[in-house]
């Protein structure tokens, strides 16, 4: 028994009122001395006893009435075990883990057996729903719960293991979204192999979300390794493919594996690129280096496979990996300057070359730059925006508005103009010249330009120009005085990335800071558009298509199907990558490839430790509010039995807990009590007049 609104029980104090009134108004039968009772005839039923009985009954009815009313408002829930019948039964939510690891060693089969047992044990009218859990929860048995066991079994048969990863914390959080409009009692049967790698960092994330309108009971059914205490099945997996110079390196890792000679084959652009056999130590990782394979120009599709030595491998799904390797000569990017011997030019050119960004700086004087060549370039650099003439500024503005991008700094010329060329902003002065030294105060660490860069705190800033950000601007880095230091200004379909200080190592030392190389590399990717789309993703990741309100383009999945409808291609949207392989993306900027692979964490089949699982169960039992301990114990036993396939899910199902709301019954009881109180009260008033005339005793 539990109460949803226990404070209403304070209303029970109101029963003192009828008690007090009864004590005041109760009238004892008048006792009178009489000479002799010899001629008196006892009444058929003693009036006093009858009246006392009536008073006590009335009092009891009124007390019960108040108590029932208070209890009804307190909304008690009656917790009972066993499968109930009727519409008030708890919803049975069967959640099957369909992450990649469930494809190992018949785990999915065992999970189906447990689920079938649960379906077989559904009570009459009891409804259930089947969900698959891998990169999120999805319903597989229809939008609404059903009591149709045949439909549930059919849905269960259609459950397949996917390449996704299951994080148990995310799954618990996902229950809230699935049960968003669900009220009352819900029994969640969670069937999984409970990988250790799926455990969230915080144990608290393993708890289901609490809701005042819902009582959630979570029962765990491990279907992991068959042998109790087993660490995990042996599994080899290709964990990474990368380019190292002119070589392609394939990383292979073994989990709980013996020493074995493994053979890896490489395929580039659909053609075999070689096979390598190498002995891998027990439970170890190794790199298979393919020397100087032939890489066509452009984005190459690279596929690595484990093809031999994996007879004991428990999980075949991770024996293949996809990668996209960009193989193209560096593209020139104009670096416009008014003086080629400026230090800024050297810093920018050097940083771009060192960053292996695929671009090389092409220094061009501002005076001689032919603006007609602008459409050739995805982006360009200007070491001092203030040096740009008016004509070129107009042409550059049109270039940006048409989709181009500029990275510009504000050098000495910029400090001398009232209004900056291209962007048209007024210079509101400078900061740091005579003031205390500035530093970086705030930065958007998650921005693609700044992601992963560190060392900003070491930046010394002595001079920057003050600009007033526009509403559409994004201040990526701000100085300690709040002034923008790195500003992104969208103009039309393009953008300008503006560094409000110089790159001559005069007003600041950014050009000589280590982070400058990384910054330029990410700036190049970002402004060229290549950085918008990752070359590699894991299954379940979300891919943002279209930027700055632009169209998404079209997406072709690994099976060759177009993912987006025609309408979707014209607006930005985010697509979930739920298949492994190569996704092709066609945007206005060109064609791109994304290699999607399973999460390497799924390859580790090590189950959650029994201690951890027991702790989780205890926590769930405690969360299901006191008295759930026995239930949790039954669940535990049931889960273990199910995992071993011995007793099957029978014992597990017997531990289901149903919470029946008692408020409707209490309200019905209240109505009955009101009726009874009225009838008895009326009868009591009527009996004040004696209705029967008793016959006197026969006198002598």
């Amino acid at each position, binding site marked *: 028994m539990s109460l949803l609104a226990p404070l209403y029980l304070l209303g029970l104090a109101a029963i003192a009122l009828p008690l007090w009134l009864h004590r005041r108004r109760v009238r004892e*039968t*008048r*006792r*009178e*001395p*009489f*000479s*002799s*009772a*010899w*001629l*008196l*005839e*006892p*009444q058929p039923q*003693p*009036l*006093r006893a009858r009246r006392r009985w009536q008073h006590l009954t009335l009092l009891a009815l009124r007390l019960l009435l108040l108590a029932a009313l208070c209890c009804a408002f307190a909304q008690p829930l009656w917790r009972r075990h066993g499968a109930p019948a009727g519409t008030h039964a708890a919803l049975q939510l069967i959640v099957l883990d369909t992450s990649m690891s469930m494809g190992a060693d018949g785990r999915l089969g065992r999970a189906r057996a447990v689920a079938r047992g649960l379906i077989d044990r559904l009570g009459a009218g009891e409804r259930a729903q089947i969900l698959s859990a891998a990169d999120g929860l999805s319903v597989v048995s229809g939008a609404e719960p059903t009591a149709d066991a045949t439909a549930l079994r059919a849905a269960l048969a259609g459950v397949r293991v996917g390449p996704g990863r299951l994080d148990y914390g995310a799954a618990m959080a996902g229950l809230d979204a699935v049960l968003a409009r669900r009220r009352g009692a819900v029994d969640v049967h969670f069937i999984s192999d409970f990988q250790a790698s799926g455990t969230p960092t915080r144990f608290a994330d393993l708890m289901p979300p609490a809701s005042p309108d819902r009582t959630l009971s979570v029962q765990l059914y491990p279907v992991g390794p068959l042998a109790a205490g087993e660490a995990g099945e042996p599994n080899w997996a290709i964990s990474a493919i990368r380019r190292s110079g002119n070589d392609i390196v394939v990383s292979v890792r073994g989990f709980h594996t013996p020493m074995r000679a493994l053979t890896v084959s490489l395929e580039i652009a659909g053609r075999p690129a070689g096979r390598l056999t190498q002995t891998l130590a027990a439970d170890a990782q190794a790199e298979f280096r393919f020397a100087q394979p032939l890489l066509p120009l452009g984005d190459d599709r690279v596929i690595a496979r484990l093809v031999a030595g994996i007879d004991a491998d428990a999980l075949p799904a991770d024996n293949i990996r996809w990668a996209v390797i960009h193989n193209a000569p560096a593209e020139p990017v104009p670096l416009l300057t008014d003086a080629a011997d400026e230090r800024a030019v050297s810093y920018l050119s050097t940083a771009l070359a060192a960053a292996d960004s695929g671009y090389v700086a092409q220094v061009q004087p501002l005076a001689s730059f032919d603006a007609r060549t602008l459409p050739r370039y995805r982006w360009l650099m200007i070491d001092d925006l203030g040096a740009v003439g008016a004509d070129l500024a107009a042409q550059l503005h049109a270039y940006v508005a048409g989709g181009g991008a500029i990275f510009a700094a504000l050098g000495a010329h910029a400090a001398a103009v009232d209004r900056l060329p291209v962007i048209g902003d007024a210079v509101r002065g400078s900061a740091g010249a005579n003031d205390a030294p500035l530093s970086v105060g705030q930065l958007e660490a998650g921005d693609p330009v700044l992601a992963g860069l560190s060392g900003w705190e070491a930046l010394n800033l002595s001079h920057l120009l003050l600009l007033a950000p526009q509403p559409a601007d994004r201040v990526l880095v701000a100085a300690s005085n709040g002034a923008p230091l790195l500003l992104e200004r969208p103009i039309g379909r393009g953008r300008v990335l503006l560094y409000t200080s110089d790159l001559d190592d005069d007003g600041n030392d950014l050009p000589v800071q280590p982070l400058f190389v990384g910054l330029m590399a990410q700036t190049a990717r970002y402004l060229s558009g290549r950085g918008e789309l990752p070359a590699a993703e894991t299954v379940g990741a979300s891919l943002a298509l279209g930027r700055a309100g632009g169209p998404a383009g079209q997406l072709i999945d690994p099976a060759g199907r177009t993912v987006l409808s025609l309408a979707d291609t014209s607006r930005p949207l985010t697509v979930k990558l739920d298949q492994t392989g190569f996704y092709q993306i066609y945007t206005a900027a060109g064609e791109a490839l994304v290699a999607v692979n399973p999460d390497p964490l799924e390859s580790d089949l090590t189950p959650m430790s029994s201690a951890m699982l027991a702790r989780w169960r205890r926590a769930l039992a405690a969360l299901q509010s006191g008295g759930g301990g026995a239930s949790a114990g039954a669940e535990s036993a049931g889960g273990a039995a199910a995992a071993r396939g011995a007793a099957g899910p029978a014992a597990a199902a017997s531990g289901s807990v149903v919470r029946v709301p008692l408020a409707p019954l209490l309200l019905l009881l209240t109505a009955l009590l009101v009726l009874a109180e009225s009838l008895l009260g009326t009868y009591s008033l009527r009996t*004040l*007049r*004696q209705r029967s*005339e*008793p016959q*006197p*005793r026969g*006198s*002598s």
Partner: protein
Amino acid sequence: MTVPSIEEAMPEQPTPAERAPARHAAASAARLLAPEVLAGLANLPLAARVAVEGTLVGLHRSPRLGFSQEFVEYRAYMEGDDPRFIDWNVYARTDRTVIKRFLGETNSHLMLLLDASASMGYGAPGLSKFRYAQLLAASLAYLASRQHDAVGLLVFDEAVRELRAPSTRTGQLEGVLHLIERAAPAHRTDYRQPVERFRSHSARRGMVALLSDFYCDPAALIDSVRPLAFQGSDVMLFQILHPRELEPALRDGALLEDMETGEQVEVSAEYARRVYPARVRRHVQALRDAAAAAGADHLLLDTSQPLAVPLRQYLRFRERRR
């Protein structure tokens, strides 16, 4: 010489000339003999005297009614008779011993049996039945004493509490009145034992006045009293009831508790109003019938009645004995 008839003993019809002052005197006596007025008198002998004088004031006969030295009859001498009353002349003529009886020698004795059981206490704090019985007993004793009748008293409840044999000795009346005054209602009622006790102490014929509420089986009561009647005594049953016993006035149901037994009976107002009075009437009638069958007289008195009624009844009884 003739024995006065009861008609002679009873008040004669007054002449019209006598009627007016007689009515006035009777009215005054009625006011004076109101039980609640008499009960207010702390002195019982005084109350008795007032009652008796008030009663006799309306009578035309002398208070010494029936008292004379006139010859009445001869009676055969019986063992125990005083030899002084043997008519020796008759013995000389007839050789038989007879006793010559005169009118004055027909004085009777009155034995008062006063029920002092707890039920007689009903009626307090106003005029209780027992107080009424005390007044009546005292008045009867006073009246009998004035008639030169021997007066005795037996106070009883479930046992005999006080007993004073009938006597005409000086101070007898005061003694009787004192015992009456001293009695208090308590305990249960048992008629058989007092009557037996009285019979064992006195074999003489006389008048026996039994003052009680008679909450008992009439047949059993008469069985107890009948030996007295067989003995030649005139038995008078004064049944004293409170008006609320005759017509209980209950506004609501009540739990009535027997004053003697403590038994509690819950009755409704309707039962008390309709059923119980009829039961009392039937009981009184049954008692009256049983008394008549046994040669006893029965008189129902409620405590609101003036004492003149029972006193006149006593006088009728006394005249009947002549």
